């Protein structure tokens, strides 16, 4: 492989790893807890921004040709990622308290959409916070100085870090999904009134889903921004949120494997793959709209023919426990209990 191709492949894989985290976080919020959070991409962005803000040096005054932004603490890695995760969780909690407390389904969706748009406009139009529409540039790559590797090798190391975080998120999500905690979230998704009647603290459980999902999204955002070294409002807006939703729905809502597959297919496959469209017979101006058309069509097809996604949510069969119990009941047959049909 030539270096250029290697770079491209690594970039694609880093992009994939980050998107896997985005979709996993959404799977917790939307797939399990049924919170239609259209401000989701704000959580990704806030992770990226905060990681940038705390890793950059102090802002220089505008008069001397500098840019304005908050913090500028020059924190060593991995603190920026931790800060990102924390801010993602806090912001998700705020959105949750504002929107999830009182609103349901479609109203909630509209409210989160507005929260996202307001945040976006504020970020862009206020230069003193994060340098407005121009955003932050020159975000240093983590550990680049410490490791002091040739550029290409460094890229491989960074890819390893991203995939490590993605794997960690996946394992965390698997644990949550397959625990009574995840089961309670799914119960809330199916019928929150019944869940409350079963003693579930619906609001608290939903807020936890918001926060953990927000943290995963923000960490993914931080890793992404540190890789490309720059962050601007134009990189994230409402359409990006829908790409993540599309990925989850195509892959399989409620299934973490589905989330991974969706991340690979939709943002990476369809957004990046459309670069490979034959440029000589398609107007280059059409490429970008075509991507959106393709994603929209895929979403419609999946919703029509396979609404549960490629990997549907699996049935929990409690195989192991049932097997154990069958043995127990078998032994008690000779004891006090009478055979009642057994198996």
């Amino acid at each position, binding site marked *: 492989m030539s270096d250029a191709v290697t770079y491209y492949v690594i970039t694609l894989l880093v992009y994939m790893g980050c998107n896997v985290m985005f979709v996993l976080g959404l799977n917790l919020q939307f797939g399990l807890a049924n919170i239609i959070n259209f401000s989701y991409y704000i959580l990704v962005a806030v992770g990226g921004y905060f990681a940038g803000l705390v890793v950059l040096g102090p802002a220089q005054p505008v008069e001397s040709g500098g840019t304005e932004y908050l913090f500028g603490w020059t924190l060593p890695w991995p603190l920026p990622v931790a800060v990102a995760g924390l801010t993602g969780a806090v912001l998700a909690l705020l959105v949750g308290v504002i929107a999830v407390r009182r609103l349901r389904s479609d109203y909630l969706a509209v409210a989160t959409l507005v929260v996202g748009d307001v945040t976006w406009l504020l970020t862009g139009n206020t230069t003193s916070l994060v340098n407005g529409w121009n955003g932050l540039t020159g975000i240093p790559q983590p550990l680049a100085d410490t490791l002091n590797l040739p550029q290409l090798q460094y890229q491989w190391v960074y890819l390893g870090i991203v995939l490590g975080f993605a794997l960690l998120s996946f394992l*965390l999500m698997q*644990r*949550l999904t*397959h*625990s*009574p*905690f*995840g*089961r*309670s979230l*799914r*119960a809330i998704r*199916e*019928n929150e*009134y*019944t*869940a*409350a*009647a*079963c*003693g*579930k*603290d*619906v609001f608290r459980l939903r807020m*936890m889903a918001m926060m*953990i999902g927000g943290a995963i999204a923000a960490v993914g955002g931080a890793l992404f921004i540190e890789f490309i070294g720059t962050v601007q409002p134009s990189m994230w807006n409402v359409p990006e949120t829908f790409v993540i939703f599309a990925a989850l729905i195509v892959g399989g809502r409620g299934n973490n494997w589905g989330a991974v597959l969706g991340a690979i297919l939709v943002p990476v496959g369809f957004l990046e793959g459309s670069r490979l469209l034959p440029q000589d017979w398609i107007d280059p101006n059409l490429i970008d709209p075509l991507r959106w058309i393709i994603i929209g069509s895929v979403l419609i097809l999946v919703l029509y023919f396979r609404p549960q996604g490629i990997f549907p*949510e699996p*049935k*929990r*069969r*409690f195989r192991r*426990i*049932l097997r*154990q*119990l069958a043995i*127990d009941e078998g032994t008690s047959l000779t004891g006090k209990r009478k055979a*009642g*049909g057994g198996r």
Partner: protein
Amino acid sequence: MTENPALRVTRVSRSFGGVHAVDGCSFEVRQGTITGLIGPNGAGKSTMLNLLAGALRPDQGSIHFFGSEIAHLPAFRIARQGMARTFQLSSEFARMTVLENLMVAPLHQRGDSLWAAVLGPRAWRREERDHVESAWRLLQRFNLGHLVHEYAGNLSGGQKRLLELARALQMKPRLLLLDEPMAGVNPALISQLADYIAELKGEGLTVVMVEHEMGTVERLCDPVIVMAQGRVLAEGSMAEIRANPAVVTAYLSGQR
């Protein structure tokens, strides 16, 4: 001094806009009884049940559940004190299996906490096993044994009723609220459901049920509380109720 009543409702009111759905109701539910709540449409029975369960909060009045005040608690806290309920409309967790529906119900599950979930199944596996076992027994008892791994949304109307009852019992409640358990259930199943409910009384459970199906009320409920226009109109055994001219008038004249 007699034992605490399971429920003591004191001058409870709740209105929606200008409608006084429940208007100063007071009554008691003795432990170990099946208390029926009947009355014409719009009498406020379902509102009363929702007030008891915390799905609605009363504007005024107090509700004591085994001696402790619950009138202003949210539904989940009341449930945690041991009050289980079923709903008038089917309210199963549709895209979860029958067994999973029952696994949601047990109160105070360790694995319900975030940390236990993150730390992994060691903390809650044993508990989970006990819950599967009791769920399995309940499903056998309610003839749903062959449907354990079916999605609850695919069950028939009558099966969903049975599932709701099983789910409520899986909470090991002290009191069970039933909101029209016989609605939409075929006659054969009605008598079977009535048998189950009678059995529960035999096991010492206190039951409060709203029901329109008079045969069932006659068979199961003692005492019966009659509501009309948001008030308690009469209270007593079915024979006493039937002899009460006010009740007859209320039923014949409807709400107005």
